[in-house]
Each structure stands twice: as C-alpha cells, then as structure tokens.
C-alpha cells in the first residue's frame, strides 16, 4: 500500500546489496522524513551522541551488521554505539539480518528499568495482565485479573484497555486495580490504557497511576492523527513524576506496531519497518519502563500472514533493543489475517529466546474486548517454563508467599483464581 515493494525477488536482493554498501553517514545525511518537516526526526537527531556517531560514520551497513554479531561485541559495546545510531541505521541493519542473526543479536542486550519494581534482569521474564471486559464490568475485570495473577501474569503491569474511555470510567478502573494491589500487597504497576489526555485528567483528579500509557507512531503525521506530540508527552511525564504513585524514574509505557502509519495514511512514503524503528527512536526520549510492539493487530493489509508476523516480531525485538529500550513483544494476530495460534507460539518462543522483557497475557489467548488474539496466561507460563525463566524479583517472592510458585515453577494451587476468595 505504500507502493514501495520490489517487483521481483532479485530486485529485492539488489536493494539489500546497495543497502549493505551504504555508509552510515549517507543515511545520517538523508533522514527518510526531513528534519524541518517532522518532529520524530528532530527528536531522533537531537538525542544523538554526535561524538559516538563520528567514530562510526564511515562504517557501511554491512560492516555494522558484522560488528553487532561479532564475539567481541557485547552489551556494553552495543549500548554505546546505540547512542550514535539513528533509527534508519538500525532498521537498515535489520534488513540485512536473518532469523538467527536477529535472535542472537537480541540475546546480547537486556535493558533494565524501574517503576515500582525492577524489570529486565537477566533470567527473568515478566507479563502484563490484560483482564479486559467488553463493557468494563469491574467484577468481570477483577475475575480475569485474579486468573492471570494465579498463573504468574501481572508482574510487568496490570494494564486494562477500557471500552468506555471517559474520565469517570478510567478513574474507576485505576482505583479498582490500585486497591486490589494494595489489599493483596502485589508488587507491580497499574495502568488504564485510555488516550493519554484522559489518563492525565484522571491523574490530575487524584487517581492512582503507576504507569502512563500511549500508542506511538514513526511519523509526526501519524502521531498527529493519534492526537500526540512531544509537548504532550513531556507534560504527561512531568505530571507522572509529580503525582504518579510509582518511585520511577521510568514511568511511561508505550505501544507501537508496524503498519499504523500506513493505516492512517501518514507513512510519508517510508516502509513499515523503518517507521517502526523511528517509533523506537522517538519513544526512547521519555525513558519508558515498557515498550512493546503489537504485530498483526491491524490486519492483513499490514502483515499478511503468520510468516510476516514472525519476521516482524524478530525485527522489532532486535531494533527495540538496539535503541536501548526495555523491549517487550506482543506477537498477535487477527481473524482476518492468514495466521493462527501456531504462528503466534513460534514468534513467542523465538522472541523469548531473544530475551524479550515481557509479553501480554489474556485469558485463553482471546481478548474479549479488543477482539484479537494475544499470548494466553498459559503461553506466558510456558515461555518461562521452556527456558527456566523467573518472574520479576519482587513478584516472584509474592507468588511464593501466595503458594502459587516454588523454585520458579507453578504449584498445584496455580491456575485457580479462587485462591483470592
């Protein structure tokens, strides 16, 4: 739909050859959307460490790929050069990488952040508990919340998407989740994913919020369509640091997704993957606690089938991590795409291997409000089990106290939401 596709497989490969020979300074001097025209470009460029960029500007993209994959390049080296890379450079590198390349490079980087709890420690995997209900019935939401927690999902955040995103409704859901966390002494974060302006109103009104959320895109035009700007995000973050319930300093939660710009007709002639990378370059400005993609949320016009979804998830994890983000993944699909549960599980397993910080968690894999499929509480527990990963430190202790986990594995009691009753 952006009219950028190659006309043949060979033409696509020719493009990759050309890309591999481009120097980083060629890319630097030609941002895909001009600096003067686009706020996302401005943030990416203004945040760059120019002296680090100067050291690497003569590298080709092909050489950058090799540097990333070399034995002598580890987390400290990658953290450092990430400060001198623009998003277009990172996207370009990903375009030259195969599946193992992407997973292997991702494994090298694990970024931490702190809100109420610490996320991103090696050997740990967290989950958002996403207990949505079609008409926001509080008891119904609470039921799904308890279910998720009984499986070990909820250490990243208890994050509710409201069907009714009025301020009154948002305040009610924030209070409810906060009160539940207080009552059961659950070490985690709460968040209600309405438009950021609504959350800010709720916060000003005294509602308890640990994490503030917003969906972001990779072009200013797309962000305008979302009703979002740098100034608004600055205001939101400042408000959170002054009135939010969390210690921080990381108090923001962003979601992205390849194709949102296309869907909003604001791609400015740039391909989806590069725009996704630019979204990461934009959102790292606010030092978020959590960033995840939502691949396949939109539909076949952006990601056609399971194969594309898997590829997008591997790319996004690598690109997010190379931006220095505490990156999570939501390998999702809709029912009008040519994808199914098996594709999602494959994407989940590979990105777990790549060291994603977190995934979503919905009951039985089916979000009954948003009408799409995401990782189930069962899949969540399975990703931990497969690689011997633990929940976040404080939350693991809580799970043990509740008798739901022992030595990093679910006990007999796990999976029974009525342990809270």
């Amino acid at each position: 739909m952006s009219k950028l596709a190659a006309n043949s497989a060979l033409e696509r490969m020719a493009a990759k050859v050309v890309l591999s020979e481009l120097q980083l300074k060629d890319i630097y001097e030609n941002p895909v959307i001009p600096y003067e025209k686009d706020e996302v470009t401005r943030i990416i460029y203004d945040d760059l460490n120019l002296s680090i960029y100067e050291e690497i500007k003569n590298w080709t993209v092909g050489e950058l790929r090799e540097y990333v994959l070399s034995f002598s390049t580890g987390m400290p080296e990658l953290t450092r050069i990430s400060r001198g890379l623009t998003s277009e450079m990172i996207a370009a590198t990903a375009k030259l990488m195969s599946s193992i390349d992407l997973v292997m490079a991702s494994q090298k980087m694990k970024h931490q952040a702190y809100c109420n709890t610490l996320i991103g420690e090696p050997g740990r995997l967290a989950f958002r508990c996403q207990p949505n209900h079609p008409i926001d019935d509080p008891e119904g939401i609470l039921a799904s919340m308890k279910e998720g927690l009984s499986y070990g999902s909820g250490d990243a955040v208890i994050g509710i998407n409201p069907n009714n995103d009025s301020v009154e409704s948002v305040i009610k859901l924030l209070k409810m989740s906060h009160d539940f966390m207080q009552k059961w002494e659950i070490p985690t974060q709460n968040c209600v994913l309405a438009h950021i302006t609504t959350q800010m109103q709720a916060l000003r009104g005294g509602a308890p919020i640990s994490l503030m959320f917003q969906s972001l895109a990779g072009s200013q035009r797309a962000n305008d369509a979302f009703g979002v700007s740098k100034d608004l995000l600055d205001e939101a973050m400042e408000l959170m640091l002054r009135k939010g319930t969390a210690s921080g300093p990381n108090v923001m939660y962003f979601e992205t997704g390849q194709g949102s710009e296309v869907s909003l007709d604001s791609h400015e002639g740039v391909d989806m993957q590069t725009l996704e990378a630019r979204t990461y370059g934009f959102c790292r400005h606010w030092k978020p606690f959590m960033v995840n993609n939502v691949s396949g949320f939109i539909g076949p016009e952006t990601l056609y089938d399971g194969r594309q979804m898997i590829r997008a998830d591997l790319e996004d994890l690598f690109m997010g991590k190379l931006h220095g983000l505490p990156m999570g993944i939501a390998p999702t699909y809709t029912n009008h795409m040519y994808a199914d549960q098996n594709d999602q599980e494959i994407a989940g397993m590979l990105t777990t291997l790549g060291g994603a910080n977190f995934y979503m968690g919905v009951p039985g894999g089916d979000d009954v409000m948003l009408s799409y499929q995401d990782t189930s509480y069962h899949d969540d527990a399975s990703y931990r089990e497969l690689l011997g990963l633990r929940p976040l430190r404080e939350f693991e202790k809580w799970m043990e106290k509740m008798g739901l986990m022992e030595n990093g594995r679910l006990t007999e009691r796990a999976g029974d939401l009525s342990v809270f009753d």
Partner: protein
Amino acid sequence: MRQINMDDLVQRVMDELSKKTQEVIHFPEQKVRGVDNPNNAEALERAMNRTPARIGIGRTGTRMKTTSYLQFRIDQAAAHDAVMKAISPEWLARLQLPELHSRATSMQEYLMNLDSGRMLSDESAKWLEQHGDKGKDVQIVISDGLSTSACEATIPDLLPALQQGLAMRNISVGKPIFINKGRVWIQDQVAKIVGCKVVISLIGERPGLATAESLSAYMIYKPDANTVESDRTVISNIHRGGTLPIEAGAYLAELLEEILKYQASGVKYMQLRAKNG
C-alpha cells in the same frame, strides 16, 4: 495353505466400514471449568459467569486442557470464515436499505488495499448525489465491514431504536444507506456529498473469538481535509454479549445530540464536555 478369497475379504471390510455408527460427539460451546480442586468453587463459578473471557479453564502443566484448546481453535476458524461471508439481498430489502458500493471489487482487494474501501464507486457516488437526502443533521451509514454477521445480528434492533431516539429529539435524519465493503473513512466522502452535519457509520468489527457479531459506531462532525482519527467518536462492542443493540441505539441518539450541541466529535468533543463539567 488355505486359499484366501480376496473378493470375500474385501466385501467383509467394506461391510464393516459402511456400518454407520449412531454415536454423536457432544462438544461443549461454552467454557468448561477445568480447575479440579478450587479453593472456593462458588466464587470460581461466579467469576466465570461474570465475563465471557476464558477463565477458570484450568491447565495441564502450563498448557490448556484439550477441550479448551479445541474450543479456541473452533472459534478462530468460525471467525475467519465469518469475515468472508457476503450480505444477503433479502436482508437489505427487508430493512429497506439501498445498497451502495465502495471501490473494492472483491474481499481480497478490500482486505489488502484499505484505500479501495474508503471511497465510493463512481456509480454509487453518482447515485448518492442524485438520491441522497441533503442538508440533514445526521446521515446513517451501515457497512458490512469485517463482519457481515455483526450487521445481521445487531442492525434490525439498533436501527429503529436509533431512529426513534433521533426523532424524539427533533434531529433530522437522511435515509439510511448500506455501503458494501465500506471502511470507516468513507463517511467523510458521504458527508461531503449529502451535506449533513454528522455521519454515523455502523460497521461490522473484525470478528473476535467470543463473538463474530460485534458492531462499532463511528461518528464524525463536519469532516474535512484536515480530519484525523482522533476527531472521530467511537462506540464499539455492540452485540448480545456486550452493549445490547437496542440500548446502543438509544445511547447513540443521545450521543449524537451532544455532538450536534458541542459541534464537535472525538477528542475535541471530550475536551469541550469536560470543560462544561
């Protein structure tokens, strides 16, 4: 060695295979409680009834039980099939909805090329110019969108309730139209042609697993070239497991009255309303 009569043997196998068994497999439609020894069975039961979400289904190791897993796959298959269904002409005739078309000539094109669903075909645009009711407060647009089933299940109750609510409030309404394979943004072109103040589009949502029958209402006040997503007001999850169609119809009439009063929709409308307290 005894001679084996091959014909005889084959016949016996065929006879055995053709015996039709009377056994029917009863497979549950609703979620099944799979937690074997719940801490509080009554509380668990209550919780399961409180939401259509797949909770209380138990586990084997970290995986779903077989029934839960198959239910999930069945629902996903049904939803995928529902996307592809076409609206029936009899249904349109019964509801007296004239059928217009977008530029999408096939389901494949509709799914893969968003722009094809965002504009009327030349023929339909012409029809609307000639036959649409001009200069009304509200224009109602109905579209199959990503679920024909949603329209069939909700519109028969929603539409009369909506029309009644608007009439009660003395809000003028153009004759409702059906746009085959229309997307949300087609409402901007419709507004331009009929010169109404607000367009309300009732569109089938992409099918989830819990329901393939969910409808959304998108409202836009006086759209123009600068209109963006956040200018639209959306109410989603209208179906028998969510907001009931009759209630939705009444609520939407109220909402349209507000939008007309504040002369804005979307985020702008929310902000103006908040200011007024």
